[in-house]
């Protein structure tokens, strides 16, 4: 009964294909599963007595993967001491062989995953301790190597549907961690001392009204000074450092008036404290520092998140390789490979380095680098790229390039360069803001000079009143509060902003450039249609095809088997010709399945050219099925367009934006997708460099380019575009260099993002107009000496509150 109602997989939430019978009893109810992978994972969870996971979780799990023996063999390599050297710490204080390592866990979607992993792993004998960090998705594992091997632990983690890689913190990562800790310390110190200063300030304010004995007032001044000093010396350090840096480079960033404001207010207060009369502004100083630090901290956390995904990518390239020497195979760390070594790469494995094939025929999945969705056939003397995946059959590869020289590292360097180019645009925005700031400062100096000449005693209170009243509080809050509000509003919609400027630029965007594979499409080969050419039914043809393909790992085979589902026949004597097709006996009759030319070569049956052309024009790759007499069916395979892609393009076009599709895929495939989603301007077979130059050309014409993509090949382009949005489900590196990440599967969030960005810009403009308008009134009043510093403080706070309140309107969803 439940099976019919829930068309979703209970484990991962994906739709359950019709006619599947995967079920698991969870909490006494029969739950539907979408695939054997999810079924296996769910069974493992239930068998471990951890069904509670399903009641605790707030997000669906990732789709379970069926474990390939090759993957398990890879984890075995992590038991080798030579491989462990880089990431394992030996704990010598305790008896036995206690080892400790950090692991990165892939597939964590909510807090219940942590609970599940901790319980599952802690139950293994030999595991001393496991603690999973929810924020970083990292696990600290301690185990007794005499009782359990690391590979067993990794295998146990994969049984419940997660993937674990050993984590070897880079130096940069370590620095980041220290930076974050220091920020927390600065923030905490400012908060604790700020509270004390505010408490004393309240006493002083009341003293102003009701009278206070001079000795106590003086005492409180000194106490406040003592409390503010650490805040100035420690917490406010980052502002001073940036301000000094800015001044050295002849710019005026927001940190300059901030630093001058707090320094002057502090210096004035110290002066009053020593003299025993005048105003003190310690409370303004500490509160200002505290609020600004809070903002900075959240910014750092967002940046850290994006840096971590890049880290995960580096560790997903293989750590070990199988070297063949004098017909003997030896597993060794990739770092120990030398040029000219021969390595064996099995199907499903990742090439450890660039090289040349010296034995074997196979096909290679290079989608990570080229965006090409179909595997590329490869034979002897063909070049393979490190990081791509071997699909069909084992290959012997001679290593030609290693480490820094590989294509992958080259792309990474390209990315780095593109990233360093970026700040030029940002700097321009800073400069304009700088002029305004400079104006305020000049004015303050002028006011001080005027009053110095006219009324020597009043110059300090008046100048401080000017600085406090115009204290860039409202001005410097105008933008960040709106950005924060817009960011959190979008985060709830699954669009994560990782750079401060992203929304600002998104609002100004004139061109949207899309990548195809994995962005507008799912990036997975699927059976699109079956064209029956004989009397055999569609189901029958699919069953024949699935029988032939059942044992193959090729994406085409997977797509066909997935579509066939049930009652698959069995085939015998299967002979596979990599890159072309396969043949085998089904019920005593020989069948061929493969490219039309393969069919023709083996059976002398020609496939109708018109039919082929029609399917290929739709962007599909075609596989034909034939027996010795006739051709039974044509299977059209292609990449499915994501839900919402067409609506997104329509919405963007309607708002007057130019939409461009740049893809590394074949002409016909790209054309078909472009036509389907309604993009008129498209370009196929683009190399990363082509995409980059296309973006540069548009930018040279004054366009503001937003790039939506995924895949390593997109990374340089993502960085070069003024604003970049990456699909977080895609390659992690793209995510690392992107300004925004789309975490949800709903593409329409992108157009929502643009709407919110535009509203944000409008609110920022309102805020700035308010802040300037307020200054225009308050500044002359203060400069003329009509405003007492306490009035200035109230005015400043009220003005800031209005700005913040206005920004909070962004959190509301617009009523339609």
């Amino acid at each position: 009964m439940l099976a019919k109602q829930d068309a979703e997989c209970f484990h991962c939430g994906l739709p359950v294909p019709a006619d599947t019978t995967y079920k698991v009893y969870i909490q006494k109810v029969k739950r539907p599963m979408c695939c054997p992978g999810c079924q296996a994972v769910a069974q493992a969870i239930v068998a471990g007595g951890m069904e509670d996971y399903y009641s605790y979780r707030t997000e669906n799990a990732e789709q379970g993967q069926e474990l390939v023996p090759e993957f398990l063999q890879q984890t075995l390599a992590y038991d080798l001491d030579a491989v462990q050297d880089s990431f394992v710490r030996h704990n010598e204080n305790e008896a036995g062989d206690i080892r400790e390592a950090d692991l990165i866990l892939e597939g964590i979607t909510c807090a219940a995953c942590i609970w599940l992993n901790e319980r599952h792993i802690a139950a293994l004998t030999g595991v001393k301790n496991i603690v999973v960090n929810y924020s970083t998705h990292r696990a600290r594992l301690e185990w007794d190597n005499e009782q359990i091997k690391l590979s067993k632990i990794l295998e146990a983690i994969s049984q419940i549907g997660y993937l674990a890689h050993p984590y070897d913190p880079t130096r940069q990562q370590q620095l980041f961690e220290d930076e974050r800790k220091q920020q927390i310390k600065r923030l905490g110190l400012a908060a604790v001392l700020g509270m004390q200063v505010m408490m004393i300030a309240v006493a002083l304010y009341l003293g102003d009204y009701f009278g206070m004995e001079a000795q106590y007032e003086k005492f409180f001044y000194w106490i406040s000074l003592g409390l503010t000093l650490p805040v100035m010396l420690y917490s406010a350090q980052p502002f001073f450092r940036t301000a000094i840096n800015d001044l050295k480079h002849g710019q005026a960033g927001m940190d300059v008036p901030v630093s001058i404001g707090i320094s002057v207010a502090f210096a004035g207060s110290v002066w009053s404290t020593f003299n025993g009369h005048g105003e003190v502004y310690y409370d303004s100083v500490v509160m200002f520092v505290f609020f600004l630090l809070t903002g900075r901290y959240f910014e750092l956390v967002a940046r850290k998140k994006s840096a971590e995904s890049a880290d995960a990518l580096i560790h997903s390239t293989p750590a070990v390789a199988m070297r063949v020497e004098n017909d003997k195979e030896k597993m060794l760390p990739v770092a120990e490979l030398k040029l000219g070594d021969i390595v064996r790469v099995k199907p499903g494995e990742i090439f450890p380095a660039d090289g040349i094939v010296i034995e074997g025929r196979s096909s290679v999945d290079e989608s990570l680098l080229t965006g090409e969705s179909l595997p590329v056939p490869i034979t002897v003397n063909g070049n393979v790229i490190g990081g791509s995946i071997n699909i069909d059959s084992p290959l012997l590869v001679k290593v030609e390039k290693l480490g820094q020289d590989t294509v992958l590292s080259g792309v990474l360097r390209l990315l780095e360069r593109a990233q360093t180019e970026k700040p030029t645009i940002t700097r321009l925005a800073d400069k304009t803001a700088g002029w305004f700031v400079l104006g305020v400062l000049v004015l303050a100096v002028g006011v001080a000079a005027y009053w110095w000449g006219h009324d020597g005693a009043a110059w300090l209170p008046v100048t401080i009143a000017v600085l406090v009243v115009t204290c860039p509080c409202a001005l410097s809050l105008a933008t960040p509060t709106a950005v924060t509000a817009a960011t959190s509003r979008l985060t709830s919609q699954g669009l994560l902003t990782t750079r401060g400027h992203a929304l600002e630029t998104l609002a100004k965007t004139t061109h949207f450039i899309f990548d195809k594979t994995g962005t507008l499409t799912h990036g997975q080969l699927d059976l699109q249609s079956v064209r029956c050419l004989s009397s055999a039914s569609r189901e029958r043809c699919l069953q024949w095809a699935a029988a032939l393909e059942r044992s193959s790992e090729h994406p085409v085979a997977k797509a066909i088997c997935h579509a066939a589902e049930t009652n698959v026949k069995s085939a015998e004597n299967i002979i596979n010709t990599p890159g072309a097709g396969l043949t085998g006996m089904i019920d005593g009759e020989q069948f061929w399945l493969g490219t039309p030319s393969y069919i023709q070569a083996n059976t002398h049956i020609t496939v109708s050219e018109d039919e082929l052309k029609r399917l290929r024009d739709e962007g599909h790759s075609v596989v034909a099925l034939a027996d010795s007499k006739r051709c039974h069916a044509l299977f059209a395979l292609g990449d499915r367009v994501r839900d919402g892609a067409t609506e997104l393009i329509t919405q963007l076009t309607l708002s007057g934006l130019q939409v461009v599709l740049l893809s590394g895929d074949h002409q016909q495939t790209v054309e078909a997708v472009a036509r389907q989603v309604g993009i008129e301007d498209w370009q196929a077979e683009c190399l990363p460099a082509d995409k980059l130059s296309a973006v540069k050309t548009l930018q040279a014409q004054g366009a503001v380019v937003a790039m939506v993509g995924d895949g390593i090949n997109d990374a340089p382009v993502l960085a070069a575009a003024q604003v970049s949005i990456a699909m977080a489900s895609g390659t992690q590196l793209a995510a690392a260099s992107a300004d925004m990440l789309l975490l949800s599967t709903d593409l329409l969030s992108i157009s929502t993002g643009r709407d919110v960005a535009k509203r944000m810009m409008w609110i920022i403009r309102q805020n700035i107009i308010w802040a300037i308008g307020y200054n225009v009134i308050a500044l002359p009043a203060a400069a003329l000496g009509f405003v007492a510093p306490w009035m200035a403080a109230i005015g400043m706070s009220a003005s800031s509150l209005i700005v913040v309140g206005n920004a909070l309107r962004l959190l509301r969803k617009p009523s339609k």
Partner: protein
Amino acid sequence: MEILYLLVPLAMLIVALMVVVFFWAVRSGQFDDLEGPAHRIIMDDDRPDISDEDKLDKDKK
């Protein structure tokens, strides 16, 4: 009101102690994961009723 001369410095002492404890907490990794513990507390490690049933189920098999 002379008592202020004693109470306020005393308060400062407590504040100083707070700061020291806070810095220690940051250094010892208390702030490394700010989200996990909030969820962890509502997930029981052992629910006797459930696990007993499980055992019964397994015995039957």
